[in-house]
């Protein structure tokens, strides 16, 4: 989230699209209710189902899953055509005025540089025209036909209300009502917030779904302001934290990157990371990259990371592919190229697409380790549960080691919520049996492995042998010790560069925050964006002062928010070019002639002049990007692409199937279905009574929602002769499930490009372990393909068939 849960109270219009906060984030959704009750805010819900969020909305519009970009570009087109634009914001705070380089073009669903054989673009023309002064050329008058604003205008022109209706199935008048309501927020005194979740990410073009809404929010001037923003409602309690700390194939903590093979040495690695400003006087904060990288290396390898060895640059692995993401690694496993796998609190047998392939892949492992508080399906993938897990144990040669870990109630530490608040929690219970904390388990695995390398040697043991492990009890580092290491400390005494006799921080002391980190090896910090969380003032994540001056929703003394305890990102953009708030009633920070101050920690240097330094300090431009240059694989502007399994052909570009640059593995292509074979458009979702595959282990939740079902319209039920509550078989080209049919008015058929499209809803909470009745999940059916930029699987739009059937045999 750019903003926070408690900030939603400040909004005028909530748009829930690509999520269902009332059911999936119920206590956060209360702030929507609060805004409605106290500010007269309105709520729009756009979803294939009439969800519980929709049931309390002021306006609901149906949409076919997988067509959000057409809808959103339609909204952008509406705002541009009807002059519903916050002009001063767009002209000063976005790259609307920047001129795009000659050679860049768009036609028939593709941008310049497409190579069909590689399923990739040469993105060299997706760039600004650079002037003789080395800066991007701009046209303040917006007259140049090649400035971003005019390029965007022509790009979205075909997304008319009629085209939106044809692609999305949203009736034209409903789309226009939504467009009219949203466009009112183009004035500086009205703000809209976007609340979205997996309904936008789990598509082969998920990143562009989110980008399209971010562009709309920029055009309306809604980024950086109270009650505005792009608010990703993250799915798990610490999925934000795990992303921030970089537990991804291609990341280092704090959104730094793991090197790739062509970055043969540290100098080469840094050469593409100079982040020279693209406009005069801009911050371009990533110019500090080297300080954060070197401080991370020092945290990892201490005295073994020296200036002479490029701070142990070669200790890091180098990637030969963009990432060894979960789809790639299961594809490799399927091909017998993976021997061992460790699942720490993760249940891939139910979480990854095409379950049949997942089972076959796990069966090819030599060994599997699971670390979990609960008895998961993954740890028992080899066990026969009749129809629910029809495997032959005797033929599965995988050794499985199941380790019992503690749960939240038995552990200390911090979790980062959607609003980037790092909240500390304390253990209150004794773990059951011999269950152990994760820190103990990881320390034990590491110490045993290191001991083997000390004793036996082996290939390149240096990163293992030299890993910083200076914990008071090496068998179990404490959460406090680790939090201090994440925050960072002075490796050597730090002197003032302006006055070398003046000591700024003594050796061994905690750094105050990332602003004092250095690139010479004198500071260490495990995750720079979290620096400030545990400094000499103590554990700031454990702060519990819930006062909120003037009821802004900031709660600055409650726990700690990254970065620098800032509660609303880009908050400089809440004020105009003179530094005065766009909306005085929603002041966030303001310029007093010499500095910025206000209710939040300013997201800009405190003395940066408002008419000189742009608010988007992380970008080389200082402005936000309506045109993304070459930073996204599938285009600098979003384009409507159908899901890989779609009920109709792509109306914009009929020859293109799915996202033209999404990675596909050859065997999976044969398993993509057409609408002739599989006529119904399926989607997956959560229920309010369950959390993924955990709560089926809980008696209360198992009572509340005891058994698996699928949800279909009355019309589809009538066509297929399915009675409410009867058993149905739902199958795709990859597998099948049996479920009770819930026949509902919440789903209605949609008319798309002249064809009636039926939607089948499939909730995701059942398996073969726990208290609830045995069942299946959508991953038995879904295709093995991910988003073109980040490889999130396409769970939200795929094709199935459905028929009446008999109940599954009980086991």
């Amino acid at each position: 989230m750019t903003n926070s849960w408690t900030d939603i109270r400040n909004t005028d219009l909530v748009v829930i699209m690509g999520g269902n906060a009332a059911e999936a984030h119920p206590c956060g959704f209360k702030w929507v209710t609060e805004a409605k009750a106290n500010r007269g805010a309105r709520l729009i819900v756009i979803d294939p189902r009439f969800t519980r969020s929709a049931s309390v909305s002021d306006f609901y519009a149906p949409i076919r899953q997988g067509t959000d970009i057409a809808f959103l570009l339609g909204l952008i087109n509406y705002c541009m055509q009807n002059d519903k634009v916050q002009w001063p914001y767009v002209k000063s705070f976005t790259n609307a005025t920047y001129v795009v380089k000659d050679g860049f073009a768009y036609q028939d669903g593709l941008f310049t540089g497409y190579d069909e054989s590689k399923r990739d673009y040469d993105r060299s023309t997706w760039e600004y025209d650079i002037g003789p002064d080395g800066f991007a050329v701009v046209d303040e008058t917006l007259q140049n036909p090649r400035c971003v604003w005019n390029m965007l205008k022509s790009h979205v022109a075909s997304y008319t209300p009629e085209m939106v209706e044809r692609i999305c199935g949203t009736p034209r008048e409903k789309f226009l009502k939504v467009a009219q309501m949203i466009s009112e927020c183009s004035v500086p005194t009205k703000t809209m917030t976007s609340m979205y979740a997996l309904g936008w990410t789990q598509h082969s073009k998920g990143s562009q779904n989110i980008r399209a809404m971010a562009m709309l929010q920029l055009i309306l001037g809604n980024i950086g302001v109270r009650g505005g923003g792009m608010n990703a409602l993250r799915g798990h309690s610490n999925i934000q934290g795990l992303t921030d700390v970089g537990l991804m194939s291609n990341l280092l903590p704090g959104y730094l990157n793991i090197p790739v093979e062509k970055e043969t040495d540290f100098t080469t690695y840094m050469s593409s990371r100079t982040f020279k400003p693209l406009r005069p006087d801009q911050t371009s904060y990533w110019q500090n990259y080297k300080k954060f990288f070197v401080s991370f290396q020092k945290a990892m390898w201490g005295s073994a990371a020296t200036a002479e060895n490029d701070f142990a640059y070669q200790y890091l692995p180098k990637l030969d592919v963009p990432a060894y993401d979960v789809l790639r690694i299961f594809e490799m496993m399927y091909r017998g190229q993976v021997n061992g796998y460790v699942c720490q609190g993760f249940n891939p047998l139910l979480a990854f697409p095409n379950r049949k392939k997942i089972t076959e892949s796990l069966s090819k492992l030599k060994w599997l380790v699971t670390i979990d508080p609960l008895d998961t399906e993954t740890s028992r993938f080899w066990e026969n549960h009749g129809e629910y897990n029809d495997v032959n144990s005797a033929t599965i040669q995988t050794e499985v080691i199941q380790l019992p870990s503690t749960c939240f109630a038995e552990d200390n530490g911090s979790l980062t919520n959607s609003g980037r608040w790092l909240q500390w929690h304390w253990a209150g219970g004794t773990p059951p049996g011999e269950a152990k904390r994760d820190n103990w388990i990881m320390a034990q695995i590491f110490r045993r492995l290191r001991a083997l390398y000390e004793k036996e040697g082996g290939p390149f043991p240096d990163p293992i042998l030299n890993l910083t492990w200076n914990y008071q009890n090496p068998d179990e580092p404490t959460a406090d010790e680790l939090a201090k290491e994440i925050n960072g400390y002075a490796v050597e005494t730090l002197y003032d560069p302006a006055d070398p006799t003046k000591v700024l921080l003594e050796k061994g002391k905690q750094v105050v925050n990332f602003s004092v980190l250095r690139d010479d090896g004198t500071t260490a910090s495990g995750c720079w964006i979290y620096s400030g969380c545990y400094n000499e003032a103590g554990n700031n994540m454990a702060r519990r002062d819930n006062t909120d001056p003037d009821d802004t929703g900031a709660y600055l003394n409650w726990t700690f928010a990254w970065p620098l305890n800032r509660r609303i990102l880009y908050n400089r953009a809440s004020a105009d070019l003179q530094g005065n708030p766009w909306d005085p009633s929603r002041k966030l920070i303001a310029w007093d002639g010499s500095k910025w101050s206000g209710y939040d920690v300013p997201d800009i240097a405190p003395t940066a002049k408002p008419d000189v330094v742009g608010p988007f300090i992380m970008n080389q431009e200082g402005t936000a990007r309506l045109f993304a240059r070459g930073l996204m694989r599938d285009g600098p502007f979003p384009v409507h692409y159908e899901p890989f399994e779609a009920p109709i052909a792509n109306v914009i570009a009929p020859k293109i199937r799915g996202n033209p640059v999404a990675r596909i593995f050859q065997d999976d292509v044969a398993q993509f279905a057409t609408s002739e074979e599989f006529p119904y458009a399926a989607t997956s979702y959560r229920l309010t009574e369950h959390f993924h595959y955990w709560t089926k282990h809980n008696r209360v939740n198992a009572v509340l929602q005891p058994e698996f079902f699928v949800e279909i319209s009355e019309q589809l039920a009538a066509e297929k002769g399915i009675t409410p509550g009867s058993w149905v078989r739902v199958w795709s080209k990859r597998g099948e499930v049996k479920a009770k049919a819930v026949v509902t008015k919440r789903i209605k058929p949609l008319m798309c490009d002249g064809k009636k499209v039926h939607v089948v809803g499939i909730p995701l909470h059942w398996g073969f372990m726990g208290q609830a009745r045995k069942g299946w999940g959508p991953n038995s059916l879904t295709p093995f393909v991910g988003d073109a930029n980040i490889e999130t699987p396409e769970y939200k739009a795929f094709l199935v068939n459905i028929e009446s059937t008999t109940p599954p045999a009980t086991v």
Partner: protein
Amino acid sequence: MNMELSRRGFLKAAGVGVAGTTLGAFGFADLEAAQAAAIRPFKLTNTMETRNTCPYCSVACGIIMYSKGDLRKGEMAEIIHIEGDADHPTNRGTLCPKGAALKDFVKADTRLKYPMVRKPGSDRFERVSWDQALDRIARLMKDDRDANFIATNKAGVPVNRWTTVGFLAASATTNETAYLTYKVVRSTGIVAFDNQARV
């Protein structure tokens, strides 16, 4: 009665009152006293309160866990009740149907208690000691890394990559566990490293 009591202070006082004999002071007759005595004593009396956050979605509602026994004194602590934290700015004491049933997760029948091993081809788990399980894991990792570690690519550039073992991290662990996990996994050269953020 003109006393200023916090909400929980009031509940505690009320709990003690019902269990004790102070009802007479309020002028209740024997009948009411007998009825009151039959009511179950307030269950949170003499429990330890611990602040925590809900482990499910990313709203991260504040919760209070009530336990018999105090971990900080080195005692065994059994959690007997969990409720919303009224002081928390986001949820202000409320919880959803998942959060309200958190105690059932803590005490689920399918909570794991002991390390187990399933041998190749077997149809069952067998209990092992932690030492056996951990030594085995370290041995399996070491042997595979030694056999399959890619130190350099064809051009002789160090790539320090281990692709035959993967690690999936958990989005419900703490940041501190995540960081420790990061250190351990990265030091080995594992590149198949991901968490739920990918799905």
